């Protein structure tokens, strides 16, 4: 018991046909970020600093759906959101509708520490970013060719498409498109194909037993402009308290309805469940028909993950030497 622990994720729900090369790329990035976090927590950085720096790394790399490499709105633009929470005192910060800030997670942290509020969005958030002097870039910076192709496919399939990092081929041969036409899953009662958004996140418990969580995303491919998902919503995509730190990924709407991240903390606090029990309970019971995954740490140095999707990009490590980077069950 005790000691540090860290987990990172790059999204829940993975295309079973994802090319091996892409899987290796993902595992390399997860390993890199995990190691970054491990070094940081070993050098006594606090949990809140570690989750921020790891998520910055994930945002900067174009592979997953956050920062550069974010999914595109229906207009072909990028609108990013992120949130961060510090377990002790439950301080939190969140941003939505970010279009020029290179690292949204850092802006979320600034909202927490330098503003009288917890959540800033769109023009107001961008204005705050300018005042804080954070690094700004053109919206184009975040847009990758891969995602431009994905958006086109999504529009053709007339569905909301999660991010798969699969090669761009014709709709008929694209497993995403094929699945979309073969068995459209339901989301909010509407026939929309469902895949994972490759949101990124990190949770850490440091040597002092402090927990923190951070989540960042570009959201759903082809989303309506102005659409806010679970990632910036405290209690849904992100949560941390004295007992735990949680970051979720998957169907945003299901995570919001299930207040997933808070749920892990609530069953630990009110039902006395241990971390893994709490994670399992929440994934099995709280998601109803929704598909999602989450990573979590406890103040006791435990780390856990759970998902009811087809795989989740993740990396886990703890002070006792355990380390694992995985995609599938």
């Amino acid at each position: 018991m005790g000691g540090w622990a860290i987990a990172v994720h790059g999204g829940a729900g993975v295309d079973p046909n994802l090319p091996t090369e892409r899987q290796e790329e993902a595992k390399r990035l997860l390993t890199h970020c995990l190691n970054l976090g491990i070094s940081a927590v070993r050098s006594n950085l606090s949990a809140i600093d570690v989750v921020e720096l790891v998520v910055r790394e994930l945002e900067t790399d174009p592979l997953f759906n956050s920062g550069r490499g974010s999914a595109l709105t229906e207009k072909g633009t990028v609108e990013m959101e992120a949130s961060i929470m510090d377990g002790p005192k439950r301080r939190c910060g969140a941003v939505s509708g970010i279009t020029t800030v290179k690292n949204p997670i850092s802006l979320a942290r600034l909202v927490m520490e330098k503003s009288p509020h917890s959540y800033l969005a769109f023009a107001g958030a961008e204005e705050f970013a300018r005042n804080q002097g954070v690094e700004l870039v053109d919206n184009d910076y975040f847009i990758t060719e891969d995602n431009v192709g994905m958006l086109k496919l999504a529009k053709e399939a007339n569905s909301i498409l999660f991010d798969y990092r699969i090669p761009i081929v014709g709709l008929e041969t694209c497993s995403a498109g094929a699945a979309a036409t073969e068995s459209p899953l339901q989301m909010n009662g509407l026939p929309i194909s469902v895949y994972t958004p490759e949101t990124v996140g990190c949770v850490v418990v440091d040597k002092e037993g402090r927990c923190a969580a951070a989540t960042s995303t570009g959201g759903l491919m082809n989303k309506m402009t102005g659409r806010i998902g679970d990632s910036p919503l405290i209690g849904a995509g992100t949560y941390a308290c004295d007992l735990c730190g949680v970051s979720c990924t998957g169907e945003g709407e299901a995570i919001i309805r299930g207040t997933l991240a808070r749920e892990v903390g609530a069953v630990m606090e009110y039902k006395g469940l241990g971390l893994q029990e709490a994670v399992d309970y929440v994934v099995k019971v709280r998601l109803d028909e929704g598909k999602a995954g989450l990573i979590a740490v406890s103040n006791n140095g435990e780390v856990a993950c759970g998902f009811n999707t087809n795989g989740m990009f993740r990396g886990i490590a703890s002070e006792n030497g355990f380390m694992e980077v995985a995609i599938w069950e």
Partner: protein
Amino acid sequence: MGWAIAIHGGAGDIPLSLPPDRRLPREDALRHCLNIGVNALKSQQHALDVVELVVRELENHPNFNAGRGSVLTNSGTVEMEACIMDGNTKRCGAVSGLTTVVNPISLARLVMEKTPHIYLAFDGAEAFAREQGVDTVDSSHFITPENTERLKQAKEANRVQIDYTQPIQKEVKIETHAADCDSQIGTVGCVAVDNHGNLATATSTGGLVNKMVGRIGDTPVIGAGTYANHLCAVSATGKGEAIIRCTVARDVAALMEFKGLSLEEAAASVVESALIGTVGLVAVSPSGEVTMLFNTTGMFRACATEDGYSEIGIWSSRQN
């Protein structure tokens, strides 16, 4: 069993010395809105329809901080947000950053029912409003002289706090108190359970006086200011930042579910564990219980149940 309804017009530092010309119109409005809700429940309307209907009415009332009468941002503009949730299905809808939509709560409902999403904000939400053909007006419609004055006072208070040094703190404190006293009015909400045990909640607000442009509070954050499931329907009000961190609305339900607390016990526990002066809430259970609690000086509120009980209040029962 039977129907029950509770509404609030904001919790905050409402001074006991609130003059009649400020108190009576609000009490009248609460009575009026409560009756609308009661009549709707009596005519067998679904809880979800009832809460939307009542909150629309509260939004239209210029004396509460929602829709017309919303408090102003630090730029003197209005940015409204709202949220609605159905207890049975846990379907929900939320909007933020509205500037021209006459009834934000109805737009939130449309997000829930007409889009694959839960939450739309700012330009995207306004564009959706136009697509849906909801009532929109010039944003000056929402701005009242009272709120323009509140903003002025809030800005002056801030300036004073920065300019003055320690010895004058006391004076400064009194001035800020006067400036804040009426301006802590935050948010309107309605929770209801109908004859069939359906629960629903709706909350709407202009946010905090002098808030930064783009600031989002607890109201549209599911689990913070608004939440409903099969155990209860909750609408919270107070200091958004505190309500978010304490996941107030969700915690009431969580305590009922995981610790077996009653509605009243769960609500009391949540309100008591929040920082004093920051939280108020109204809640109902499927069996027709109602609770209205706050750790602020007061909360504009009203409730009624099928067995004939009804109540309208501002401060704690002893002081009303």
